[in-house]
C-alpha cells in the first residue's frame, strides 16, 4: 500500500505576532513545528504501516526551505520518503493553489491513500484535503477519527457535532482528513533520526506545477475585535487573585 501524508509547518501557537500590512510576522524566538492534526494524520499512517508490512509512506510539505525540518521529523517518526514542494511563504498560497500543486505532483504516483489534517492549525480552513481529493476525483471523508483497511476497502468513522459518529465504507484510493482522538503522535526514534539526517528530501519547484489563478485575496489583517470588556488584571499573582475574588464576590458569583 502506498500512503501520502501532507504536513504543514506552522508557528508555535504561543508565538507572539505583529501585523505588517497583509503579512503576519512572528516575534523571536522563532519556533516552528508540524501542525498538530497533521502529526496525528502521520501517526495514523504509521499505525497502518505497523500493521501492513508492505506499506510505503511518503510525507509531503509545501513551503519555503525551513519546511525540511518538519519533513526530517516525519522521517524520524518512521516515514519512508519525504517530498518538499518548494514555494514562497509570502503571500501564503491559497488552499486551491496548494491542492493543485500537490495534485500535480501526486498524480501518477499511484497512491492508495492520502491523509491530511482536518485543518491546518494556523489557517484553519479545512480546505486543502477535500480540494486535493476533488482534483484526483476521489471522494474525501473528513474529520476521520478511526480507520481500518481491509484489502481494497476502507472502513472509517467520522465525527460530527456533539460527538456523534458516522460509519462509512469506501474503496481505495481515497483521501481522508484526520481529526484528533485518543491516539497521540509517537516521538521520533534515534535510529530514524540518524537516517533522516542523511536523507535529502526530493525537492519539486512549485513554479513548475500547474495551478489555477487565485480566486480570493487577503486584503487586510487586523487584530481580532474584543467582544467583551476584557479587563486585564495587573500586579503580582497574589494581587491578581485578590482582585478576581473581589470581583466575583461583588457579582455574587462566589
Amino acid at each position, binding site marked *: 500500500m502506498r500512503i501520502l501524508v501532507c504536513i504543514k509547518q506552522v508557528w508555535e*501557537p*504561543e508565538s*507572539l*505576532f505583529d*501585523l505588517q500590512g497583509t503579512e503576519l510576522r512572528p516575534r523571536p524566538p522563532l519556533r516552528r513545528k508540524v501542525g498538530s492534526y497533521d502529526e496525528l494524520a502521520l501517526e495514523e499512517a504509521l499505525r497502518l504501516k505497523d500493521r501492513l508490512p508492505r506499506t510505503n509512506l511518503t510525507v509531503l510539505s509545501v513551503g519555503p526551505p525551513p519546511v525540511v525540518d518538519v519533513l526530517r521529523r516525519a522521517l524520524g517518526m518512521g516515514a519512508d520518503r519525504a517530498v518538499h514542494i518548494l514555494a514562497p511563504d509570502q503571500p501564503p498560497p491559497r*488552499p*486551491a493553489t496548494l491542492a493543485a500543486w500537490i495534485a500535480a505532483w501526486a498524480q501518477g504516483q499511484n497512491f492508495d491513500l492520502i491523509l491530511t489534517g482536518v485543518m491546518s*492549525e*494556523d*489557517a*484553519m*480552513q*479545512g480546505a486543502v*484535503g*477535500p*480540494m486535493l*481529493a476533488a482534483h484526483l476525483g*476521489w*471522494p*474525501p*471523508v*473528513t*474529520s476521520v477519527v478511526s480507520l481500518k483497511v481491509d484489502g481494497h476497502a476502507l472502513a472509517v468513522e467520522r465525527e*460530527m*457535532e*456533539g*460527538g456523534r*459518529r*458516522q*460509519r*462509512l*465504507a*469506501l*474503496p481505495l484510493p*481515497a483521501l481522508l482528513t484526520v481529526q*484528533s*482522538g485518543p491516539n*497521540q503522535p509517537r516521538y521520533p526514534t534515534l535510529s530514524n533520526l540518524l537516517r533522516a539526517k542523511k536523507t535529502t528530501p526530493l525537492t519539486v519547484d512549485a513554479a513548475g506545477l500547474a495551478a489555477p*489563478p*487565485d*480566486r*480570493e485575496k*487577503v*486584503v*487586510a*489583517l*487586523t*487584530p*481580532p475585535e*474584543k467582544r*467583551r*470588556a*476584557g*479587563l486585564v488584571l495587573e500586579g503580582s*499573582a*497574589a494581587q*491578581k487573585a*485578590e482582585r*478576581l*475574588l473581589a470581583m466575583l464576590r461583588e457579582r455574587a458569583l462566589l
Partner: protein
Amino acid sequence: MSAGAKSRVVVVAEHSQGRLSPVNWELMACAGQMARVLGLEVAAAVLGQGVEPLAGEIAQRTGVKVWAVEVEGMAAFHGEAQRLALAQLLPAWRAQAVVGAHSTSGLDWAPGLAARLEAAYLPGVEGLSAGPEGPRFSRTAHYGKVREELAPTAWPLVLTVQPGTFPAAPPGEAGHGEVEVVRLPAPPCRSQLLEVVDGAGTDAGLGRAKVVVAAGRGVGQAENLELLRRLAGLFSSAALAGSRPVCDLGWLGYGHQVGLTGATVSPSLYIACGISGARQHTVGMQGSGFIVAISNDPQAAIFNLADVCIVEDLTVLIPALLEQASGYSDPASLQGDLPGRPG
C-alpha cells in the same frame, strides 16, 4: 462583479434526526447581509429524505424560497451525496453564492464543491462588509490571534459561516416563502454511509452547573487538574469541563468536552484555564454570563471574549486563589466528593 439582479445566495440548511439545526438561522443572517451588499436574492435548500416539512419551516420563518431536495438513498447527512447533488442543481438555481456552516458537515461538502465549481472559497466567515472593489469577508486565523479580510476575485462563491458569530435571524412569521420539491436519483457515490452512532460521552453535569471551571492543554499534566477541582470546590454548584485536547489526552472523559463537537454551556461563570480560545471551543461557552480567562499567552484569543483576563501561569495563579479564598469560603464545600472526577 457579475452578480446579476436575479442571482441568488443559496443557504444549504443543516438538519439531523428530522430537526433543523439552530445554526441555520445564523446562515440566514449572513445570507441576508450578503443579499443587501451584493444585490442578491436569498434562497435555501434542504437535502435528504422527507425534508419537505423542514423546507416548510424555513420558508415560514424566513419567507424565502426553499428547495426541498429529496435525494434517493440519502436517509441521513452524507457529504459525498450532498456535494454531488448540489453540483448538479446549483447551475439551474442561478446561485452566485452558496452558504454552509463551518461545521463538521459543512467542512465535508463545501471545499470540494468550491473546487468542482471553480468557485472562490471563503472558510469560517465571521462578518462581511462592502469594500471599494466588492465584498470583503472576515475570518479569524492563526490560533484566533488575527482577523483576516478576504476579497473574492472570482465567482461564484462558496462560503462556510463560523457558528456562533452571526446573530441568529429572530424567529417570526415572515410570510410563507415558496417550497419547491425536487426529486433526485441517488448520486453516483463511491462512499457508502452505513450508520450514525451517538458519541461515547457521558453527561458530566455541565448543563446544570452555575459555575464551569474549564481545563485546556495549558494545564500541562493530569495532576494539575487537582488544582482546578479545588478551584471548582470553592463554588456551591460547579462542574469541571475540558477543551478537546484535554479529553483526547484522557485527562477528562469526553462527556466533559465543551465546544463544537462537545457540549454547549452557558453558566453564570466560566473560568477558562489554559485554553487558547479556538472558535471550535468558544462556540460552546460564549453565552456564559461572566467569563474569566487565565492563560500565559497575552495574545491568546480567549482574552477577546473574556470579561476578565489574567495573564499568568495557572499553576501559580490558582494556588494563590485557593489560598486567599480559603479565608472566606464555606469550609463544607471544600470537603466530600468534588465535582468532575473522570468517570
